[in-house]
């Protein structure tokens, strides 16, 4: 009898504790995420997830959103669209978040009609897709940086300003994978090149894991472009292309967009990485002169003392966390409740936001993307700035 009373007492205490927990949770801003922590995108997904979690934890250390804490809840999707969509719906039902982070372009495209009409949740993701950043179509969705098309625009602007031969139209080739990711910015890039007076002399296409790229290299040799921009790859087959181009005697400068601007690629390229260029929306871990990087390093020293390096995917997660908190703070400052529709209205109002050197002066002007990036060049195994922040809008 006594043991029954003790058990009932413990159960009651547990219920009270859980009740108190729920009451506390109600006073937080809930942000959910479907992250590709396993599966073929996990090499980046686990870092993005950590970056987002750390960014929000850092914001909480700074007092949250005017005293309201941010609560981050994530689930692994294995980079499987069906799992991601199911996890999103489950999390919407269970937590009613006001902001969410998705695992891919595919997830964003699959869910955008329901995000707009039913869930009304502000949605960031791993994606830099032009279509998702279209404010008219997807007012709730933002891209954590410039879209791939805008990244091409930034590189083409740099090329136009830095012709290899003075007085001669610079020439460029696009080298992309035969995927949606690879093709996404190409139509915009063709138009942009025409506007900027850069001649597109070749477009090469390969499968992501192509073993032999000789036929594409021969075509590049035929056109001998001043610059060549990669899109739709992470590492392979880029080292094979750059080394092959050197073997074939090409003097082309190779460039990349966000995913091909990792130190992982520079490590693989070794000495061939000297002079490799590309666009990045953020500063790198080792740019310690950047105030926000100092903050990130300090946070990691305190919470993850064993960490010696954070890749650019971590920076994407960190920046997305900054955007989430910024939107919530803007709502608060205007005296509006922090709801999905109010947060969505804040996106176009982000103007000349100082990210402390991390991502330039950020504005979401004509689209829900930042349209700013910096061109970096590989030197001694690291990326160093080759330009200041380049703005497109």
């Amino acid at each position: 009898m006594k043991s029954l009373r003790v058990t009932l007492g413990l159960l009651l205490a547990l219920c009270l504790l859980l009740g108190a927990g729920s009451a506390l949770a109600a006073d937080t801003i809930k942000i959910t995420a479907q992250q590709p922590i396993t599966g073929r995108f996990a090499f980046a997904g686990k870092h993005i997830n950590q970056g987002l979690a750390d960014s929000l934890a850092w914001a909480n250390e700074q007092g949250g959103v005017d005293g309201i804490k941010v609560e981050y809840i994530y689930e692994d999707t294995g980079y499987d669209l069906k799992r991601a969509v199911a996890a999103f719906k489950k999390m919407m039902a269970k937590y009613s978040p006001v902001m969410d982070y998705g695992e891919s372009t595919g997830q964003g495209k699959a869910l955008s009609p329901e995000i707009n009409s039913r869930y009304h949740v502000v949605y960031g993701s791993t994606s830099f897709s032009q279509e998702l950043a279209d404010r008219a179509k997807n007012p709730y969705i933002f891209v954590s940086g410039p879209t791939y098309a805008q990244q091409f625009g930034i590189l083409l602007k740099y090329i136009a300003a830095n012709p290899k031969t003075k007085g001669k139209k610079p020439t460029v080739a696009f080298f992309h994978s035969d995927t949606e990711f690879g093709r996404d910015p190409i139509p915009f890039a063709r138009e942009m090149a025409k506007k900027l007076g850069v001649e597109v002399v070749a477009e090469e296409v390969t499968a992501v894991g192509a073993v032999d790229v000789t036929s594409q290299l021969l075509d590049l040799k035929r056109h001998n472009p001043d610059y060549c921009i990669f899109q739709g790859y992470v590492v392979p087959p880029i080292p094979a292309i750059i080394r092959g181009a050197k073997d074939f005697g090409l003097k082309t400068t190779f460039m990349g967009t966000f995913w091909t601007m990792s130190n992982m690629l520079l490590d693989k390229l070794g000495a061939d990485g000297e002079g490799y260029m590309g666009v990045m929306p953020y500063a790198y871990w080792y740019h310690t002169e950047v105030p926000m990087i100092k903050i990130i390093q300090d946070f990691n020293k305190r919470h993850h003392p064993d960490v010696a390096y954070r890749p650019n995917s971590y920076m994407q997660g960190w920046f997305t966390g900054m955007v989430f908190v910024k939107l919530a703070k803007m709502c608060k400052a205007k005296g509006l409740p922090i709801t999905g529709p109010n947060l969505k209205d804040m996106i176009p109002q982000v103007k000349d936001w100082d990210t402390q050197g991390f991502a330039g002066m950020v504005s979401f002007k004509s689209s829900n993307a930042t349209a700013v990036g910096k061109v970096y060049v590989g030197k001694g195994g690291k990326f160093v700035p080759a330009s200041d922040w380049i703005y497109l809008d």
Partner: protein
Amino acid sequence: MDILLQLIVSGIAVGGVYALIALGFVLIYKATSIINFATGEFMMIGAYFFYTFMVMIGLPPIPSFLLVMFSSALLGLFIERAILRYMLGQPTISIVMVTIGLSSILMGLAEIIWSTDFKSFPPLFPRAPIIIGDIIVRSNLFWGFVAAMAAVILFALLFKYAKVGVAMRATAGDQMAAFSMGINVRSMFTVAWSLGAIAAALGGVIIGNIGGIQPTLGGIGLKIFPVVILGGLDSIAGAVVGGFIVGLVENIAGGYLDPYVGGGVKDLAPFVVLVLILLVKPYGLFGKEDIERL
């Protein structure tokens, strides 16, 4: 003309590597009549074995290579003994599903053991390209071809002259007859899985040396599939010829047609050739015609 020669030489070089991986399919199918859909993952695990021995443990390339062969043989042996042996006599579709499941398990294990990060080995061959007249062959591809062809020749000799190879051929020809002649048919299945795993793993080391390794490296197994179907699922010579045909077709089609249609022909062309050849020879170029009388 220079371009055509360049495309042919590169096509042959990459075709040799395809042939070695195709051998991974053929060796297993020849002895056990099982199409191993996890061949690509055997290849990927082999590349990770090499990475473990050479980069993580710090052994020189040749001992690492030998240890890859040994550990891959053990992997093949384990899989046959622990899983496939219990599938004997089951419907083909069940066995196919097991090998597909196996591919997911191996990929998951690779993620757990080696993480999902991109890995690479230090360069195995001299950096300088091989120049034959006006033709340039990239070093990795050339030496990869040499290594792959050496392995293919060794496997062919093993099948032709070694006792175990003859026993495997006998098992592949008629299991009941082989059994009645005192051949341990079950052991031959194990040997086939081990040899298949070694062939795929060696291919994995060569491909990994060209482009680096990731748990998704096994996806290339799908590309090798036209090679084995084209050559004939149970023919070593077929794997070699199929490898060269696919290497040549994709390179020449890529070189001449890709610039006009905006790319993609290089990956499509081998499948078109595959369909055309299968229309004429449904068992592949060198495949054994299987006649069932009712």
